């Protein structure tokens, strides 16, 4: 019976192939320095926003040609949502999650790690060419998971604002309340539209003036009229009395009133100042006809 011989040959060859595969892995991880995320450290998700380095997400220089990119994942965006990193330098990506499990995959690179609340993930990568890469959340993390993404831009030359500490997001948007409590903002619609796009609102809401077509939340092109209507509804039990109040409340405490037919899926803002919220409210009123 020849079949036993074939069998022996097949199984030996198979075993050899498996061993060769293990050899290649050994070479890849030790010889070619491709490392998986390991056990780096722990952090308490309850206070992660005030714990270094996650209190100041962004890029910092830690050596002559070495950088650290700190990223905080939260429902449903990455902080910062855009990172500029230098070409040809070692960039160590350090991440964690402030709430549920998220994924962090930088498309076109081998940076691929899970962000698990309580654990710190880290991987080092060197970009060889300038270019833009998506950061994709590739683990299901709730209603708007598919709108959770960010960007890494590899550039030949960093500019000053690319490093954290050299100008906070607040100063950049340039809006604040003066000592009398008046909103100071040069271009409410322009700044508001920009905030709308960079703060993730556009992923969930449609708003033609901001080129937004999200459909998880209600369309906002008629929000002024809708707001006026909603506060008179019997189902409305919260305290807003004017459309402005209603929109402000919708942004600050989304769960106070959940619009009929939509999930309670809107996250409360994590990184908006009060002045920025006010700009958003005024912008929405302005573009929806009031």
């Amino acid at each position, binding site marked *: 019976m020849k*079949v036993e011989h074939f069998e022996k040959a097949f199984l030996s060859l*198979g075993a050899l192939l498996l061993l060769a595969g293990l050899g290649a892995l050994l070479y890849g991880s030790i010889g070619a320095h491709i490392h998986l995320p390991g056990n*780096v450290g722990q952090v308490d*998700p309850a206070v992660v926003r005030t714990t270094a380095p996650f209190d100041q997400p962004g890029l910092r220089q830690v050596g002559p040609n070495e950088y650290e990119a700190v990223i905080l994942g939260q429902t449903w965006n990455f902080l910062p949502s855009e990172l500029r990193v230098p070409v040809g330098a070692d960039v160590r990506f350090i991440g964690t999650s402030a709430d549920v499990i998220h994924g962090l995959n930088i498309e076109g690179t081998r940076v691929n790690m899970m962000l698990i609340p309580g654990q710190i993930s880290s991987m080092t990568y060197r970009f060889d060419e300038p270019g833009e890469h998506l950061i994709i959340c590739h683990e*299901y993390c709730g209603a708007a*998971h598919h709108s959770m*993404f960010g960007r890494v831009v590899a550039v030949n030359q960093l500019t000053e604002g690319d490093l954290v500490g050299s100008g906070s997001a607040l100063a950049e948007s340039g809006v604040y309340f003066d000592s009398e409590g008046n909103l100071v903002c040069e271009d409410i619609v322009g700044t508001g539209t920009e905030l709308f796009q960079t703060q993730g609102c556009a992923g969930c809401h449609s708003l033609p003036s901001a080129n937004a077509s999200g459909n998880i939340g209600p369309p906002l092109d008629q929000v002024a009229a809708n707001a006026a209507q909603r506060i008179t509804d019997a189902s409305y039990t919260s305290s807003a009395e004017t459309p402005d109040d209603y929109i402000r409340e919708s942004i600050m405490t989304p769960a106070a009133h959940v619009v009929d037919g939509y999930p309670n899926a809107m996250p409360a803002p994590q990184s908006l100042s009060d002045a920025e919220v006010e700009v958003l409210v005024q912008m929405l009123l302005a573009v929806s006809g009031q």
Partner: protein
Amino acid sequence: MSAGTATVFDPTGFELPDGQRRVLRWTLYIGYFALVAGVFHGLAQALSYAQIDILKYFPFLESYYQGLTVHGVTNALILTFSFSNAFLPLMISRALSQKLVSSLLWTSFILMVLGNVLVFYAVTTNQASVLYTAYAPLQAHWSFYVGLVLIVVSTWVALLNMIIVYRRWRGAHPDVRVPLLAFISLASYAMWFLASLPIAVSFLGFLIPWSLGLIDKVDPLLNRTLFWFTGHAIVYAWLLPAYVSWYALVPRQAGGKLMSDTLTRFVFILFLLLSIPTGFHHQYTDPGISTGMKAVHAVLTFGVFFPSLATAFSVVAALEMGGRARGGRGLLGWIRRLPWGDASLTAQILAMVTFVFGGITGLINASYTLNLVIHNTSWIPGHFHMTVGSAVGLTLVGVAYWLIPYLTGRQLWGRGLALASSWVYTIGVLIFARGMSSAGLEGMPRRTYMAQAPYYQSQWDLGGMLTGIGGTLMFLGIIFFFIVIVATILVGKKGAAPKDIPWSESLHGPVSEGWAPRLDRIGVWSLVAVVLILIAYSPWFVSNLPPRLISPGFSIW
């Protein structure tokens, strides 16, 4: 029976009592119904990857992720375990010529039904859109976790039934080797029993008290690790019943013989030993687990590939014997002579074909560093629709084509449509997997409502389109299957059904001398498995216990 004769115990003329047949039949119906229920949203998912959004035609669904939870739970959990709960006890009862224990059969069935009812309630009311992996701190309604636990307990009761039947038989036949079919059926569920303990700890110890408000917080990494502690072995719990059919039944259906009794037992023992201590290969990209432990699991994962290689050889050799016995000649001529008109056999051969690709892509996933390229991209669903989604799925379809007639006493209705179902499904799944894997290599994520993703990239167009086309064919294949089965049950010709299971002879039967009989001691092998598991997992648990209870629940869907 005198020691020294190689024998297969042959219970000619055995008949299962009608009452027991009925319970087995209804257990199977639950599983096959779950398959059909689940593929509707499967279609929606595949089309969503092709940028076609048909979700608006599912008015009773609140979101893509609710549908994806349905798909994963029905197809990966309910289909597979309902099938095993019926199939494995039937196999052992037939192999040993013993009746099953009716009370346990009923208990297992009722637990399965109750589990389904609870899960159905939780998922359809949108209180459990956490996907079938239920990763904390996403928090579902307690009924979801309790329902899943009941389903797992139903599998334990089915195993208990098998053990009792086995011991009864053993009492009457102290010196005979266990018939192969009984041995591999028992080994399959023994492996699953060991494997299911960690998830039981996770659900009973943490997630259920947490969802009931008895504890406020849980440890996300600990629960995730417990999940994958069970989670890799669960895929073998899905696969091994299919292997039981490939080894012990398919050769007969093809007109051949099972190659080697001893090698087959050896293969199942390797699965028992190696399926469980490999779970970290699902957590290569996780923080909080040392790279050294990940490497240990990588090596063991390569080890558990070996019994599948042996299986590939054995089942192809059995098919070849069949083809040659039917007059096939030449190197490949035997393939044409296989009974391709037999819908049951055809589905299972096609299942084996897809498993070649499933196995190869699986080895890539297991490859430690290579995993970084594909982890959680659409490559992964590409891979597992060729393993659980067709190697297992199509085998269960193929088995239904003789098993439902066998249990109902009715002839299979619509052989042509039955044949078409598995061909259409196979062509579909190959196109689907080609699409999912190639787009995955370019970073397209899995578990994502792609039709609405604001960052969608045009480089995924081709992969997405193939996913949509392939998924549509797969859907058609399952619908054909559904029509055939329902028609068989309702209008199939009475009396013209198979009277016995297609049980194969072995070319090289069991040996009673030397070390071979020691292979039969499942209890001892299970202990060895426990030792291996302790080696692979205890270092991590030692440094991660007690749990860090840090995460409150989030129900944000």
